[in-house]
């Protein structure tokens, strides 16, 4: 499948950028970025119609990264797809930088909403979707959230609203890595039965492997008769064995040695 192979290639390059950015900037949340980067790569490999030449079109698709702490993943994917110069990545989090530690839109092409406080992306995306439905405008709205973010009340307010307004143009993708700030999501504030909750709120729902490029793209493209949620089961720190499934890498940034070994591991993979 064309989308899957393009996404896989993009994700591999983006992972290396993420590791470099977080290492050079001594910034946190590398684990969250590695968790979500496959989802973003699929979205920007043909699932959405967002391109550099239609960025100001009113009816193009929209992607909002609501888990703003995984900013390095979004920036890497957008830079690799040519939305802004790759050099911007070098100064990530630095003084006077264009790219902040949490998603900062400041006129950057392709960055729709500045995020960083959880629970903001879904209501905002819902507003765009509703406005388009009323105006008869095309274009889907994809909102990527973390699972911990589903603790926020706005998630469930918006779940009601999207169903009430029958927003078939709204797709939520949940990066279900099961680890939040301190512990496992189920130890922190139980979400399960998670998929059933969304279904009971009237949403179409799909449970997929969040690192399977074909499965992700199929889930994103499949038709839906209401708002759609994709629960993408992921691994925090995916792709770097010593970072996987570890709360520590929500906070730590790789030192020089760890960076080399992490990049080597990514490059070795097919």
């Amino acid at each position: 499948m064309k989308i899957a192979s393009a996404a896989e290639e993009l994700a591999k390059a983006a992972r290396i950028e993420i590791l470099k950015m977080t290492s050079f900037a001594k910034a946190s949340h590398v684990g969250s970025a590695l968790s979500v980067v496959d989802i973003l790569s699929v979205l920007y490999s043909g699932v959405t119609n967002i391109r550099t030449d239609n960025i100001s079109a009113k009816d193009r698709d929209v992607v909002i990264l609501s888990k703003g702490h995984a900013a390095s993943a979004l920036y890497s994917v957008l830079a690799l797809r040519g939305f802004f110069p790759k050099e911007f990545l070098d100064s990530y989090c630095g003084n006077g930088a264009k790219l902040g530690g949490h998603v900062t839109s400041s006129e950057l092409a392709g960055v729709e909403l500045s995020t960083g406080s959880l629970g903001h992306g879904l209501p905002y995306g819902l507003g765009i979707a509703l406005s388009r439905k009323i105006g008869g405008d095309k274009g889907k709205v994809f909102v990527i959230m973390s699972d911990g973010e589903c603790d926020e009340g706005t998630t469930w307010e918006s779940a009601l609203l999207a169903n009430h307004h029958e927003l078939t143009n709204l797709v939520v993708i949940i990066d279900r890595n099961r680890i939040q700030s301190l512990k496992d999501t189920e130890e922190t504030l139980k979400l399960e039965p998670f998929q059933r909750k969304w279904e009971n709120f009237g949403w179409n729902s799909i449970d997929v492997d969040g690192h399977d490029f074909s499965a992700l793209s199929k889930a994103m493209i499949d038709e839906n008769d209401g708002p759609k949620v994709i629960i993408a089961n992921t691994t925090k720190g995916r792709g770097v064995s010593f970072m996987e499934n570890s709360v520590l890498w929500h906070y730590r940034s790789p030192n020089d040695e760890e960076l080399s070994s992490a990049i080597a591991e990514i490059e070795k993979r097919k």
Partner: protein
Amino acid sequence: MRDAFVRTLLDEAKRDKDVVLITGDLGFGVLEKFESELPSQFINAGVAEQSMLGLAAGMASTGKRVFVYSIGNFPTIRALEQIRNDICYMNNSVVIVAVGSGYSYGSQGYTHHALEDIAVMRALPNMNVYSPADPLETELITRELVKNQKPSYLRLGRSGERIFNRNPLTLENGRFNQIHRGKDGTILFTGSIGSNVIEARDFLLTQGIEVGVISIPYISSICKADLESLDSTKPIISVEEHTIRGGLTSALLERISTFRLNIQIVPVTAEQNNLSNIGDQNYLRNMNGLGVPQITSYFFQNN
């Protein structure tokens, strides 16, 4: 004031289909006409203020001019971070409209008293605060708000406010509104407390004291020329149905300091001595230092 707002907005919205009115499930007897005449420009977001402000911002990002209507603190303090991040940070064209300023819903209890809203909204970057005094100021500002694309907060009284401006009202955007002139002092005020201010002026006249009255509906854009035009040799008081912490008087004093002007203003603000006090608007104004006798007292002391 709320009727003047809705009537004016409906008039503007008929001409501009990008105008959208969202309510947080409030406005019984007020919004029905708008909803029935322009159903595709009306949304009831339910009792979900945080998501309502977020979705308002999202709609505005697509080119809509979104008005969000609710009561008291619900569309402001309840959804403060959505306003800060999604509206102000993103500079989205949303107008937050709160009905029930000050003690308008007095007997409903402190949850329904809007006494810190100006301070909280004024603290936000890119936010413009509007506080009209009567239906004519409300109409004028509502028309301006449809045209300008800035994040805005419109603070309204409730209903039945007396009109003290001349009809038609001409008022330059951002300027003081001089309602009466007077040689013996000045009352600056904002919002529906104007009814007590006018009553205070009328009483002072019977006592041979003539004070000027100035309404300040544009709280975020107080200009130097207007401050310089005040007669600082006579007493100046600033009356607001709001806490002293961060409201109109604070805004005036900040500008006076910035411009290094030598003007003294005495604050007459809601004292908030007992948050559990119950009573109608007039009762609570009197209990909290905003009654007519309290306003007039500043001029007797100084004459």
